[in-house]
Every structure is written in structure tokens, then in C-alpha cells.
């Protein structure tokens, strides 16, 4: 008797949950982890307000997020990635038709304003090799993310390899990095941020957008090495590469991809592709672009992919 009552209660609760109605102006966006601030605090709320709906944002490593979406473990209306790499996973899974550029950024070197090297970094400029020399100082604590699973971790290696050529400082990249996956420098995204903000690293590789969002001082770098400008690809970016081990333990050669943020509407969008399209259009609209700019992002560069 008691059990029957309990079962009925459980069933009723379940039915209630599944019947929860959803207005079609609601939106669920998944995005590359570094975009948390601009998505959850600027674009998302602004879109929700404009459409009188609800915004849900989820950020994580872009590759992991793409794989969760591709295997249908999670669903979303829109996916925003940095570089076209994670998008390819969704394209291969047949979940998207095309992806449009919505913003861009560049590689910078952020530094701790309270650290021992703050003054040296403040005087350094991207126009000469001074910042490289500070980074190569023995004893400096430099932080970066893991090139094995994070595009940003790969990008700082590309930038340093390019800097070696650009400033004609052979061998300096290896001197700074101490191996591609040097445990003394490599952290997971959240761990690196915690170290930088608590002053436990002196400098860290970052995207200009997130560094501006976090109000940290940084050294801006020239286009030839900051990976932001697709026009520099042929002459500069494409000339460097390095290898990491893939899941079979074999060497996999990595090449640069432009630091452009792409957005795509998913075919299995829970709120419908129209809602997804509305959010992408909003990101490209003047108010949307203004919000990107406020958060330190640069204008979209290059054309759509897969068209």
C-alpha cells in the first residue's frame, strides 16, 4: 500500500518534470571554456533580455565539448569554438552545415602585476625581443596549458617557435619551454588561472580577449607571431609545426589554426534551429559585436568554413 503510494508519487513527479513547457526564445549555448565571461555575463543575458527568454551557457575545453555534442551526450542550440578544429568534429558527425566567424583574438603573454618580473614585463614590448628575454630568465615561473588537450597550449608553442624566427633568437623557444609538455609549466586551464591570479606564476600564455576580461596586464605581440591574422598564415604561421603523441602513442604533427571564434547552429537544437540562428545573428549584429569588443575580443576575420 505504502509502496504503491510512493510509486504513484514518483510517477507524478516525473510527469511534471517532462511536461515543463519551454518557450521557443530560450537558448542553450555551448562554448570554448575561455569565453565564459563574454557568454555568460554579456551576450547571453543581452540575448535573453531582447527575446524575453532564458539563456543557458556551458563552457569547457572546446574539443571535449565538441565530442560530447558529437556523441549526443549533451545537446545545445549553438556551439562556439575557437579555431576551426573542434568544429570539424561536429561536421564529421553530421551535426552542422557551416560555421561562421563571430570574433577573433590573438596570443599574448599575461603577467602577474605583483610578481618579481612585473616591472621588466611592463617595460618590454612586442616590437623587440625584450619580452622573450624576460621569459628566458632562469627561475621565472611561466605557465601554459597542456598542448596535448588544449588548443591554447599548442598555440603558445607556435608563437614561441615563430618568435624564434621573427626576432632571430635561435634556440630560445626550447629554453623557455623546457620541452613541450614540461610539468613545471603545464596546467589545466582552471589551474593556470588560479596560479596567475594568486601570483604563483610570473607569466602565462593567454588569449588577448580573456586576459582583458580578467583585467591582467600583458605584452601584446606582432601579427607575424600572434596567430590572429589569416593573411600572415602563408608567410609565417604555416612555417612552424611540432609533434605530440596521439592516443595510439604515435607522433602527430600539429599545425596552426587562425584564432578565430566560429559559431554553428546544431541540427538537433533542442529549442529549434531558428532559435539557434537567432543567437548567431545576434552575435554578428552591431550590439552583439559591441559586447564582444567590450570584453576584449577583436572583429571576426576570414570567411565561413565548409561553404
Amino acid at each position, binding site marked *: 500500500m505504502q*509502496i504503491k503510494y*510512493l510509486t504513484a508519487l*514518483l510517477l507524478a513527479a516525473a510527469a511534471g518534470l517532462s511536461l515543463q513547457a519551454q518557450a521557443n526564445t530560450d537558448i542553450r549555448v555551448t562554448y570554448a571554456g575561455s569565453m565564459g565571461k563574454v557568454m555568460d555575463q554579456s551576450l547571453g543575458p543581452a540575448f535573453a533580455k531582447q527575446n524575453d527568454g532564458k539563456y543557458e551557457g556551458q563552457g569547457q*575545453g572546446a*574539443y*571535449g565539448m565538441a*565530442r*560530447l555534442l*558529437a*556523441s549526443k*551526450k549533451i545537446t545545445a542550440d549553438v556551439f562556439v569554438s575557437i579555431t576551426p578544429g573542434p568544429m570539424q568534429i561536429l561536421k564529421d558527425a553530421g551535426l552542422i552545415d557551416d560555421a561562421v566567424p563571430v570574433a577573433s583574438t590573438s596570443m599574448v603573454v599575461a603577467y602577474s602585476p605583483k*610578481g618579481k618580473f612585473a616591472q621588466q614585463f611592463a617595460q618590454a614590448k612586442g616590437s623587440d625581443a625584450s619580452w622573450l628575454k624576460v621569459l628566458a630568465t632562469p627561475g621565472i*615561473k611561466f605557465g601554459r596549458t*597542456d598542448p*596535448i*588537450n*588544449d588548443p591554447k597550449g599548442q598555440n603558445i608553442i607556435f608563437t614561441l617557435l615563430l618568435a624564434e624566427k621573427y626576432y632571430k633568437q635561435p634556440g630560445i623557444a626550447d629554453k623557455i619551454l623546457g620541452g613541450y609538455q614540461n*610539468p*613545471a609549466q*603545464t*596546467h*589545466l586551464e*582552471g*589551474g593556470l588561472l*588560479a*596560479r596567475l591570479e*594568486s*601570483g*604563483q606564476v610570473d607569466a602565462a600564455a593567454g588569449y588577448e580577449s580573456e586576459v582583458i576580461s580578467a583585467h591582467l596586464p600583458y605584452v601584446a605581440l606582432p601579427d607575424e607571431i600572434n596567430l590572429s591574422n589569416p593573411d600572415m598564415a602563408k608567410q609565417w604561421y604555416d612555417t612552424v609545426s611540432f609533434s605530440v*603523441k*596521439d*592516443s*595510439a*602513442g604515435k607522433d602527430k604533427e600539429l599545425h596552426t589554426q587562425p584564432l578565430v571564434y566560429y559559431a554553428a547552429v546544431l541540427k538537433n537544437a533542442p529549442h529549434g534551429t531558428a532559435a539557434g540562428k537567432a543567437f548567431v545573428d545576434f552575435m554578428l549584429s552591431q550590439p552583439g559585436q559591441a559586447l564582444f569588443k567590450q570584453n576584449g575580443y577583436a572583429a571576426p576575420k576570414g570567411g565561413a568554413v565548409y561553404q
Partner: protein
Amino acid sequence: MKTRHATALWLSLPALLLLAVPFVTLIGITQWQHMHLAWGDGNAIATSLGLGAIALLLIFISGLPVAWWLSQAQGRARAIVELLVMIPLLTPPLAMGILLVSAYGPYSVPGELLGKFGWTLVNNPAAFILAQWYGALPYFITTARSAFAGVPQDILDAGRTLGASSWQGFWRLSVPLAAPGLASATALAWVRAMGEFGIVMIFAYFPQGMPVQLYNNLQNDGVDAVYVLLWLLLLFTLPVPLLCFVASRRVHSGNTSME
């Protein structure tokens, strides 16, 4: 008696079902024909088990006196120590990792002291063990303390009247009588240390144990690689708690047969 057990079992069904659902799903979605390790899985297993064993030993040695003292103590001192154990228990692992970075990072006071000897606590085995230690110690102390508290006071009093020192009372009476509970505490500490991700991902990303490798596998190879490593994680970490349970049951039945 029997009907009461039957009712209890029926009432247990929702909880049991809840616990079983993800793992029944896991059996269904694992690609049994294509089971193969991703690169680094073997190392991750060795790291988790090897360093986890050291952490477990440290947790046991450091936690046991605290648990016993808590079970015996009274007054304000006990309240303060209880609070000290409760705060890390309540702190979410991610926040704990951030605190550890600030407390033991190279520019913290302990970090600078260690630096004088050329040591650091950044992404090395010592940092990994410290992360597990922090993750599991409060759980061990809380569970072991309940085990000690379950030892009847009159047995300890009787021991004292017969001339046992408090050290003898602890080793000869408290520990054997609390053994089943201590085994549970050890099992819980092991499980907690093995699964520790929040602290580790912030404070000790290297050497990479199984939870971090699960994250890597998801990023690089997708969910199928996660399932394989999850099976291995269960396979390699289950024996310790199972042994603890078997041992405690044996001690327990030994005790009752003596009575």
C-alpha cells in the same frame, strides 16, 4: 523478522535502481570489440595506484590519532578540532585546489622555504600525494572517529582498572574493537583518493592519474576512450575496499564467536 527484511528490501529498490542505472548503461554502451587503451592509460593507472597507496598510508598514520582523540575528548578543544576537520570536508574540491595553490605555490611562505632546498610542490608526485591527502583525510577522520566512538566505554574503563596504560588501551582494545569501522574508513579514504579530480586538476595536473587521464581521453578521443579507462579504474581500485569489507566482516564474526 523475515517480512521486515522483505519490506526493507522493497524500500531499498529506488536507491539501488538509482545507483545501478549509470553502470547498466555503461555495460550497454561499451564497445566490447574495440576495447583498447589510449596512450598514457597504463601510466595513469600506475600513478594512481602507486601514489595513492603512499597517500593512503599517510592518511591512515596521520588520521588515526586525530580520530581516536576526537572519540575520547570533550569540551572546547574537541569543538575546535571538530570544526577543523569539518571545514575541509565542506570545501568543494575545486576551491580546495585553489587554496592549495595559494598556500603551497612557489611564491607562498612554505613554497619559498622549500625553494631554498631546491624543492617545489608544483605538478610533481609530492604535490599529487598532497592533493589526495587533503581530499581523503577528513573523510577518514570522520568515519574512523565514529568507529572509535562505538567502542563501549566500560570495556576501556575495565582495561584501565586492570592496569592498562592508555597506549595499551588504544592498541589492544580500541583498535581491534573498532576494526570493522576503521576498515570502512580506510576503504572510503582510498575511494576518495582514487577519484580525486577537483583538487588535482588545479593543484597537481602532473603526474596524471586516472581522473585526469579520463579528461584527456574525452578531449582527445571522445567518450569511448573514457569507458575503457573507467572499466580499468573500477577493476583496479575495487579490490582495496572489497578487501577492507571482507576483513572487517571476518573480525566482526570473530568477535561475536568469542562472546
